[in-house]
């Protein structure tokens, strides 16, 4: 197995993160209210400046979350009640990740951030670099407050915050 690329090799790191983003979904349980029907798409929102580009679209192509086909939506600004199941909040001039996260606080939305220094601007899952490899830390209490259940399998892979 090849070692995961370092952050410096930004392209590879971005690709890994793009893949991880939808893979998280398999280890998360949404409350039934998150989807209105079995055929509803699972919406993966990317807020702020999109670091992935077409890599993300290629990674999620044909993938499903519990039978729901994954749809990628890019948002300049996250409003309260935005129709996201997963929200990747990237920094931008238009809206800070903390503000974007505030918009969906309490909603059944899996929030993901990347290298958030400020704990208040940190999503339920936050990508970090450890020993040159892409890892992630998880705040399960935050997820619980939004009605999400994160599998212990995923928790076991997370690094300490």
């Amino acid at each position: 197995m090849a070692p995961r690329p370092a952050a410096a090799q930004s392209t590879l790191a971005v690709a890994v993160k793009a893949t991880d983003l939808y893979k998280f979904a398999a280890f998360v349980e949404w409350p039934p209210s998150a989807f209105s029907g079995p055929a509803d798409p699972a919406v993966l929102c990317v807020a702020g400046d999109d670091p992935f580009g077409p890599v993300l679209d290629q990674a999620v192509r044909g993938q499903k979350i519990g039978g729901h086909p994954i749809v990628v939506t890019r948002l300049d600004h996250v409003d309260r009640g935005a129709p996201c199941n997963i929200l990747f909040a990237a920094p931008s001039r238009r809206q800070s990740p903390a503000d974007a996260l505030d918009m969906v606080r309490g909603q059944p939305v899996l929030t993901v951030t990347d290298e958030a220094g400020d704990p208040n601007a940190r999503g339920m899952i936050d990508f970090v670099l450890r020993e040159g490899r892409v890892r992630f830390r998880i705040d399960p209490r935050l997820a619980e407050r939004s009605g999400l259940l994160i599998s212990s399998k995923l928790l076991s892979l997370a690094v300490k915050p």
Partner: protein
Amino acid sequence: MMRVRPPGDRRPARGLRAVSMAAAMIAAVLLVAAGLAVAGYNEGLFRAQAAREAQVQADILAASLTAALAFDDTDAAQQYLGALRANPEVEAAGLYGPAGALRSSYRRDPSQTLPVRAPAGAPASAQGQLVVTAPVVQAGVRLGSVYLRVQAEPAQRRLLRYAAIGLLGVMASLVAVVLGAANAAQRRANRALAEANQALHHQIEQRERAEEALRQSQKMEAMGQLTGGVAHDFNNLLMVASSGLDLLDRTQDPERRAALRQGVRQALDRGAGLTRQLLAFSRRSPLKSEVVDLGQRIEGMRLLLERSLREDIAVRFDIQPDLWAAELDPTQLEVAVLNIAVNARDAMPAGGVIVLAARNRPDFSIDGEEGDFVELSVTDTGEGMAAETVRRVFEPFFTTKPVGKGTGLGLSQVYGFCRASGGAARVTSAPGQGTSISLYFPASTKPLTQTPAPAPAPAAPPPGTVLLVEDDDAVAAAVSAMLAELGYRVVRASDATSALAVLDRGGAPIDLVFSDMVMPGAMDGAALAELVLERRPDLPVVLTTGFSEAAEAASRKGLKLLPKPYRIEELAAELAAARTAKKGS
């Protein structure tokens, strides 16, 4: 007899043992079979269980490796796989990606190998190894697979189990062998026992033959003594009778003739008594029990005793007043007392005293009999007897008198009579101290038997015609004379057939048939009596015989019988009674 089972009796027991032996063998075989079956069943169960366990382990491994596989976390995957080291049965494990490429692996030792590509298919077991695979699935998405290879069973555990089964089999066979050995030993013991038993039987038979021979010789000796004694007694009686008759012809002196007649009569009476004694001894003379006052009976014998004994012997009576009654045959009683008295007389050659005493013995116990008894004892002042003689005094044919002097029957008659009456007899004696013989009879509460008064002569019908059936001419002549003397007319027939002919001819009217019982020809007296009863129910029949067996048979059939010898008075009374009974009925 010996309590030894004849050889044939062992068969069922031996059969039983053979069956139990076979049962034991079958049980042993069944035990082994059951052990093997249980072992086989357990083996199957164990394999299935092992396969399930391996599968569960693979499933758990797959579940815990899900995230590591999803996020390509080699460290985490290696950590999980390394944890398998805690289970010594796991030989190797592999984690394969969605395309089937090996991502991470675990080997118990370096010699183990893993398939490079993810294997597919059901669990397989080979060479004691069990191989299972499990898909790694998360949220319905197949992420890859897990390969797990475990030892199907540790070698030592399998060995242990087979050793246990083997031990079971060995023990079962051991049980069968021990049972077989025990059985064989028992059979040998039985054979030895059977042989010993046979030998014992042989010896018993030999002994019985020897005893039989001894008894026979003893009997012959007794017969010799008896014959001698009886012949001597009879010769004496015949001598008296013969000389008496001779002298009767030679004298005309009425007083002397009367004395001679009485002498002849006494001799004949004693002869009759002697034969009665013989019959009583042979137990063929049935007891004619009556309830009697012993005291009265003994007193009544005073004259008889004084006549039988010598002048130098005094007879005294000591009878308790209010003596209880006893049920016994008075004739036998008299014979017994006479026997004892005669013995006492012979024991007192120089004279002495005989005391006859009678008294009540309440709540007495003797020879296993208990209750109220009446004791009659005859005590003499004679020479007494030694202990050895006392011991044997009641034995038949035992006598201390020389051959020709005694029959040895007297005291045995006494003993037999007492036992037959439900009582007992005892002897007390010592040399020089005299002898006392005591007879014990159970006391009776029944009223005394009234001695029937002789039938009044006028009531007897007038004599008529008697058909006398008798084969012996001498007896026939004597009886004819007696009948004629009694006023009867006599028609004689010499056997039953001619008697019937006389009756059928219907010549002179016959009033009574008087027939001997034992006669030559096809028909005896009893058969004749029955035929006569059939044809002429009104015709009285009286039988007579000197044979005790024939007399018993007649008594059983309810026929009238007059035992020989009889006196003319007895003949008259019996015939008159028979005719009166017929008339009355």
